[in-house]
């Protein structure tokens, strides 16, 4: 048999494939035009800004462009001793230009990220540089402040030469590039991010577990109750969705605070002493309780949609074949709900890992997550590139989890409804 397939022609003699494409082209164009506005909207408002934001995490062009001559002159400097006069001269030239443009403040901020202490000496340099004489800039600059005579500060400047940098990512892992260019961890007492990462994972994990334990019976009830009751229950499950997230979190604050309703109740029934009320808020407990409640519907709904499709006769078959109710549940019902469990857990875990408002309000110091740190850098320190670096790390974490899940369970096993 020949492997070559004969080309089929239409009655007009045009190859069938060509004819088919032609016939379908119009529909394809129509379909594309229909989605084009949304596509454009997404690109403009979603893909582009996020891409730009993520690019900031590695972009270090600002310093590169502010000190172009300096870095050119530094190319031949080995970094062992203080640089030669030509570097100082180039730096002076760049700096004067920056002062003219009133951009030296930005430079000081940027350099200060790399090494503390740049802010004041740049300010001083600006004042003194007005009275500099031509020639021998090395002497003149070094006399401004003793740090200008310290080789480490010059090394710090050189480290900012590349257009792209990974230092924000290292900082997110509590690491940095030291004077020798090696990647090392910061001192023990200054490590804050690693703790936050671990705590984020821990809280997301336990919130997922709690959600699963609570949602499974609810979803089962929803799927098996008669319509009349299951509708009512469904409304109860969905009710939180119709309430503002802030309102829900605030109501947890009312319930959980030390003088709150839950504590009052415990004192009332004599479970705890009035002067020894437990702290249930502004710590991990607060984050656990509030996040579990808020994320519960995201677990209930996928589970429900899967359980709804499981015929009750399967459990009956399991029992009639001799399985005890537990065996019938464990061997027949439970395995069939795994797609729902996978979907629910993945959804809750991913939502929890990036949760922000609730932990910020009820988490206190020990209950905040990495996203609160990201928000802090977005709003307070204005170190957007660091915030975006941590955002990308969070995103890659989620993608890794997604990948792992796909390897273990298979993503096509997921059922959201």
């Amino acid at each position: 048999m020949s492997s070559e397939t004969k080309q089929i022609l239409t009655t007009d003699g045009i190859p069938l494939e060509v004819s088919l494409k032609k016939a379908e082209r119009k529909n394809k164009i129509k379909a594309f035009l229909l989605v084009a506005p949304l596509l454009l909207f997404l690109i403009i408002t979603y893909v582009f800004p996020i891409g730009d934001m993520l690019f900031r995490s590695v972009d270090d062009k600002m310093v590169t462009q502010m000190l172009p001559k300096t870095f050119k002159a530094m190319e031949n400097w080995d970094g062992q001793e203080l640089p030669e006069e030509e570097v100082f001269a180039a730096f002076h030239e760049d700096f004067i230009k920056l002062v003219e443009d009133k951009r030296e403040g930005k430079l000081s901020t940027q350099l200060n990220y790399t090494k503390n202490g740049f802010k004041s000496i740049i300010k001083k340099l600006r004042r003194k540089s007005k009275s500099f004489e031509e020639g021998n800039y090395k002497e003149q600059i070094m006399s401004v402040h003793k740090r200008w005579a310290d080789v480490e500060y010059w090394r710090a400047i050189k480290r900012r030469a590349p257009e792209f940098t990974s230092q924000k990512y290292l900082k997110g892992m509590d690491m940095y590039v030291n004077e020798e260019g090696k990647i090392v961890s910061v001192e023990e007492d200054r490590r804050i991010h690693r703790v936050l990462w671990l705590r984020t994972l821990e809280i997301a994990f336990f919130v997922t577990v709690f959600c699963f334990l609570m949602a499974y019976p609810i979803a089962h009830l929803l799927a098996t109750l008669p319509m009349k009751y299951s509708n009512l229950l469904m409304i109860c499950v969905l009710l939180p969705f119709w309430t503002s997230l802030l309102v829900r979190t605030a109501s947890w604050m009312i319930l959980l605070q030390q003088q709150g309703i839950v504590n009052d109740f415990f004192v009332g029934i004599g479970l705890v002493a009035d002067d020894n009320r437990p702290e249930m808020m502004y710590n991990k407990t607060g984050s656990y309780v509030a996040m579990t409640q808020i994320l519960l519907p995201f677990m209930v709904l996928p589970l429900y949609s899967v359980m709804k499709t499981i015929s009750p006769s399967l459990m009956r078959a399991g029992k009639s074949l001799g399985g005890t109710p537990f065996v019938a549940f464990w061997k027949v019902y439970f395995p069939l709900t795994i797609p729902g469990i996978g979907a629910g857990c993945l959804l809750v875990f991913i939502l929890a890992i990036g949760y922000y408002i609730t932990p910020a309000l009820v988490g206190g110091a020990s209950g905040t997550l990495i996203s609160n740190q990201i928000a802090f850098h977005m709003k307070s320190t204005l170190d957007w590139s660091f915030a975006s670096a941590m955002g990308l790390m969070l995103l890659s974490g989620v993608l890794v989890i997604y990948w792992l899940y796909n390897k273990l369970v298979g993503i096509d096993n997921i059922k959201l409804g």
Partner: protein
Amino acid sequence: MALKKDFVKFDKVDKSYDGKVLVVKDLQLDIEEGEFVTMLGPSGSGKTTCLMMLAGFETPTNGEIYLDGRAISSIPPHKRGIGMVFQNYALFPHMTVYENLAFPLRVRKIPKDEADKKIDKALSMVSLQGFASRMPGQLSGGQQQRVAVARSLVFDPQLVLMDEPLGALDKNLRESMQYEIKHIHENIGVTVVYVTHDQSEALTMSNRIAVFNDGKVQQLSSPDELYEKPVNSFVAEFIGENNTFVGEVSDISGGKCKVKIANTDILANPISVKGKGEKTKISLRPERALINPSDQMDNIHSGKIEEVIYHGDHTRVRINLLGNNQFILKVPNSSANLDIKLGKDIKIGWNSEDARALDPS
């Protein structure tokens, strides 16, 4: 070993779901060991409820069910040891055919080599050898059905319940499966209680049929008796085709009765009428009424042909007879019967033996 007469016994069983309506009323039913009994009835007649009570998924509101002499109302389903085939097969979709069949054996802690033998045997019984490693989703409807049957038999239960197992299959497959299930039953001699609303299925397969209506067993007898000798007008109308006349008994004597219909008297067989003046409904099977009747027949009347439907081997003729314009006649396709034409008047006759005067409802 003598077969027990009352292997399964429903004793005065009532069932109500809401405390207001009885779905099953005072059910009294004995099923012999090794018998194939079908519960037949329209939907909502209580037949499935009876099956579910037997399987243990519903509890009787009153009365008791006995299995092999034991009262089973308080025994949970998994301890009853009853095999069951469900309407939608209820195969476990995440298990292979082998695992499906192994399930009842595993929970009974039967050693693997013995279990494998049983599974092989059960699969060969439904001629599905070589399908053990398939998933149920990869099988056709008929194959799934056979796996379900094999699974219900693999642990050698004494009693197998089948709840409309062939309802989802197409007509041809359904018919061949009917024979297959019948043969399996004959070969292994297990007691089968079968629920269906399809009368031809019931007639084909069963030793005895219990016709359900309104929560009660209307008649429990063999298929031929059910068809030939229905005891009330519900059974007569539910099983097979039926021509009816509604009238009043004008005379009753010597095993025959006269019933007055549209100013004409016809002779009938008094089944549930006792005396003069009673209202009655006469039931007559279409194939018992003949055209061009011989003179020995004691009922001969003439009517007008209103509709003729050609069916190949026979012709269905609708006739307006004694004021009943729904009188159906089945005329065999033969050269003697070629003169059947629309609008013609013809003579029709039947024996009074075949016209059963039943209750008027």
